[in-house]
């Protein structure tokens, strides 16, 4: 059966689109609708009111939460980018065989096959006052007393985020780097460039799409998180979605929905900004 090449893309993209439309499109439509509903203690009533949005924008809590979450996102992005780029660079250019690259990759992935929840819980015996890290520092004589800020603080939250999400930065960047034609690099070296110049002028620009994708992943993950913040900050920090989850716990769906819509618009804008800097799709079909 010969398929016209015009139809082929539609057939290829159909299954994915179908899944997303059913399992995302419908909940999304419901969420947008519910964000305009009214509610009281007893039920959620279909309506079209703007009160949820007005309360959201009128409350200083919203801005505090967004500031907090955006700060987390920015810090985590910077750290994961720095670490991720370096690790990806090492794997792409200094590790010689595919087998070794795979092996080292998988070495990094294995901790993720211990459920997230277990690892969250294990941070406490690791970073706590009596934990391994503090005890090591004390034994080595670096500090006299255990460091309190390591756990139940913003520092702990950032550490946990970096721990969880660096891999999401490494994979796309590595993919981009792996595609760089070695001939270009050799040409640059021959032309007299030192290592830093090669990185700045050759590797960085050619890994742009990988960096963009990694950034999209990391930013999205941080903006949408509530679990890590809740556990690692010891309930002392909030994020946008954590506030949302408190509302859902009491079945207060309309304000949670309004919060979600605003969050999605905000993150969508951030993603669009990243894509404006690096047009991933153009690189794809170009």
């Amino acid at each position, binding site marked *: 059966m010969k398929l016209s090449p015009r139809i082929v893309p539609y057939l290829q993209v159909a299954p994915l689109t179908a899944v997303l439309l059913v399992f995302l499109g419908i909940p999304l439509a419901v969420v947008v609708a519910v964000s305009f509903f009214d509610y009281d203690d007893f039920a959620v009533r279909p309506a079209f009111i703007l009160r949820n949005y007005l309360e959201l924008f009128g409350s200083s809590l919203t801005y505090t939460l967004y500031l907090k979450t955006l700060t987390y996102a920015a810090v985590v992005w910077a750290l994961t980018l720095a670490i991720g780029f370096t690790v990806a660079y090492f794997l792409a250019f200094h590790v010689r065989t595919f087998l070794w690259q795979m092996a080292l990759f998988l070495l990094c992935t294995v901790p993720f096959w211990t459920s997230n929840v277990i690892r969250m819980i294990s941070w406490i015996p690791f970073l*706590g006052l009596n934990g391994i890290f503090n005890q090591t520092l004390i034994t080595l004589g670096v500090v006299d007393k255990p460091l309190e800020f390591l756990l139940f603080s913003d520092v702990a939250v950032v550490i946990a985020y970096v721990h969880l999400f660096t891999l999401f930065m490494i994979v796309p960047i590595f993919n981009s780097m792996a595609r760089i034609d070695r001939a270009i690099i050799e040409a640059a070296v021959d032309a007299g460039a030192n290592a830093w110049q090669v990185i700045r002028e050759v590797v960085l620009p050619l890994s742009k799409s990988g960096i963009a994708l990694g950034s999209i992943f990391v930013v999205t993950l941080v903006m949408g998180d509530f679990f890590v913040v809740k556990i690692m900050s010891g309930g002392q920090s909030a994020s946008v979605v954590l506030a949302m989850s408190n509302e859902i716990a009491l079945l207060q769906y309309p304000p949670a929905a309004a919060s979600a819509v605003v969050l999605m618009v905000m993150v*969508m804008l951030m993603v669009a900004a990243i894509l404006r800097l690096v047009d991933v799709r153009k690189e794809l079909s170009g």
Partner: protein
Amino acid sequence: MQSRHGANKRPWSFYVLAAFFTLFVLFLYGPMCAIYLLSFQGPNGGLTFPMHGVSLQWFAALFVQHRTGDFAGSFLRSILLAVLVLGITVVLSVMAGLAFRRRFVGATLVFYLAIASLIMPGLLVGLGIGLMCQLVGLQPAWYTSALGAQLTWTLPFGLLIMFAVLSRFNRFYEEAARDLGGSAWQTFAHVVLPILLPGIIAVALFGFTLSYDEFARTLLTVGPSNTLPLEIWAMTTNITSPALYALGTLTTVVSFVVITAALTALAVLQRRRAQRRPHAAVTR
């Protein structure tokens, strides 16, 4: 950078970067150390140090379902679900990624649908799908509604990674294969797929890991039997036992065994292929 001449000599930057990488791996495994040590916790010990004696009791506790939770059952469910998600994600993402190489009507919409899927808070996705099931009369279950919910999480990742992989994909190989008389399927299976393989492996890994660790979306769509993250989290309103840590240690050990086996197999395969065709070196 590697020098042109001494191909076997490592520049100093290699050692610096290798050291950095080692630190990174240590960072990743740091909390795991706590897990490994504490999984040998004595019978009266808890989830933190100090150790109250040493025992293998918690490993045994994993296989018996009692107050400490149905770890064995939920673990199997999580693995099965993750494998399902892996399979579906790979197939659908590769297909869709290939579709995006051409311009087609609705491409932007699908792309932003995928982005929306990424950024929509998981709790609400789960809530929405649960409501949908109620309305339609379907019972939520881990292999239907939870599967769909997790796909909304993994498919965007898969799609975007395919973008990254395909953006440097050189069409010439495809065209050359076609010129040499290959059919569409042959071109795909023998030329495109092998070149895309690292990317596909990345999508597979992401799909599996994201599904296995997924929490928010699964919370309200899982139906009558919990997956592992939900089971563990539900147990935390009661005494959690170091059996959790035993689970972590076991999964690590099993993962290492599986990976070593897979890589050894891959190495053997590669060597055999190189022996059969000594002139066609597989370059990357």
